[in-house]
């Protein structure tokens, strides 16, 4: 039953590549945004929170379309892209950007919940011992939030693997180039006699997601043992 074609394999590899790239790229900004929301006290925090979480509640198609308008030839970033020769739309980078925008709120949310568990007195102690905020962030918050970061990253990775709506609009559905697993399944379903192929990819997708979850659970448990207060 697992008679996968070459394009199927490409879709699987591309999905993994896109999800991994998007997650890795999002981590530093996600950590900073979560720290800002967890510890920051400033005007407009509610607004920032709303904006950051917006892609989570918007239909992915809407996100994809807005990104297309932003990055397209006639969009506000069009002249810049034209001048630098950068092409994003309908390349695999478009899939990365779609996943990045849609998965980012999940990452921030998970990290933030972990950060809010950190005793603020520890940060105060660090500051009275001479550490400025960025030092405190790196020497106290980051090491203590390993589990939260990991949980957020696996959530975002899994979400990116399944990204469909925004990707199909921004990256298109080009086999071997921008066709990720969900897009390949969509193609199979839409072509006569494609049931077997769709089912095979579905099973593969389940296996991949399960592996990611198991790996992160194991890691999180190992980290929990290490950083017990």
């Amino acid at each position: 039953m697992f008679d996968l074609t070459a394009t199927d394999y490409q879709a699987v590899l591309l999905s993994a590549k896109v999800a991994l790239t998007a997650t890795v790229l999002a981590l530093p900004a996600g950590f900073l945004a979560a720290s800002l929301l967890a510890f920051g006290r400033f005007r407009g925090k509610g607004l920032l929170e709303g904006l950051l979480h917006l892609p989570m509640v918007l239909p992915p198609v809407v996100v994809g379309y807005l990104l297309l308008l932003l990055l397209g030839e006639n969009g506000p970033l069009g002249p810049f892209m034209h001048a630098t020769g950068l092409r994003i739309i309908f390349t695999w980078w478009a899939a990365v950007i779609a996943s990045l925008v849609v998965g980012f709120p999940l990452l921030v949310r998970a990290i933030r919940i972990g950060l809010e568990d950190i005793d603020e007195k520890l940060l105060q102690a660090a500051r009275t011992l001479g550490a400025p905020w960025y030092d405190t962030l790196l020497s106290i918050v980051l090491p203590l939030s390993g589990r939260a970061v990991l949980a957020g990253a696996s959530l975002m990775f899994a979400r990116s693997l399944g990204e469909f709506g925004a990707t199909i609009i921004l990256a298109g559905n080009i086999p071997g180039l921008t066709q990720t697993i969900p897009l390949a399944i969509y193609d199979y379903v839409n072509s006569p006699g494609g049931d077997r192929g769709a089912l095979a990819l579905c099973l593969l997708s389940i296996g991949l997601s399960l592996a990611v979850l198991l790996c992160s659970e194991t890691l999180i448990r190992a980290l929990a043992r290490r950083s017990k207060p």
Partner: protein
Amino acid sequence: MNLNLALQKKIGTFDFDVAFRTDSKRLGIFGRSGSGKSTLVNLLAGLLTPDSGVFRFADRVLFDSARRISVSPQKRRIAVVFQHSHLFPHLNVERNLLYGYRRIPAADRTIDPAELCRVLDIAHLLKRAVSDLSGGERQRVALGRGVLANPHLLLMDEPLSGLDEKLKYQIIPYLKDVLERYDIPLVYVSHSMNEMRMLVDEVLVLENGALTSQTSPETLARLRMKDCPMGYLNFFTLRDPVPNDQLWSYSWGNNRLVLTQSVVGTEALFTLPSKDILLFQRHPESISARNLLQGTVKNLFDLDRRIGVELDCNGQSLVATIVQQAADELSVAPGRELFAAIKADAFRRVY
């Protein structure tokens, strides 16, 4: 230390408004919970920004609302030892200790970590995880971490209240040793009168976010005798233990006292409630109590149905409480010679 402060802060319905200046090296902040002690700690450390006021410490302006000066906590060089020690859970003891040390300019690192570890008796713990420490060890490591930041001021916020009643005072000799050796001024916040008397020279009493008095711990303890069922607690710093026929004899100033307890080391602190002292008009020929001290009445204070009698015993002060009838019978008055009897097992060891 030269500390000059006048700060106002409104938190919800709580109004904090305190002004004082002090030159004492060891300042106590005394008050019940909710009196504003923690607010003062946070304001001193810079963890809370006042609404208005001025805070100057040793020629440095740390806060001045009129001149828009507010020095951040990391630049104040005021190390805080918190109630629950708050050691960093992901770092071992050694890296906790060196956290502040590594963050000050090399030229300011005058305290040698190895020496401090010896003084605090934590050298054998360096490689341990902080989760493997006892309460007392945690508090000594927290103290070491603060001191190694070479602070201009050490701020301790109820450092003993989370500890086991039996062991909690054991850190006090360490603390005294460290403060003297490295000459660090101390601000000590607590609701315990005993800790105040053991550690500080001057006490500020806070109530409802306001300063109600600025006095010596001794005066405060006597003022509060009335409200305390134990009466007044006499503190004895005893030295040079000598075995004496199954008991131990110690020197107390120019007197010698006989106790049942032995101590390791040369100096120890014992307490004795004022109500456990018997007073005699003349020398009782033979009594069961092993200690009989002769003293002159220095002072009397009225304690609501009891009388506090302060005796001068060879230069040491001893306070006994007796009822009014006894005072009449003994015709106690300043200048009168009396004998005080104390049982050898009446003393309680503090550290």
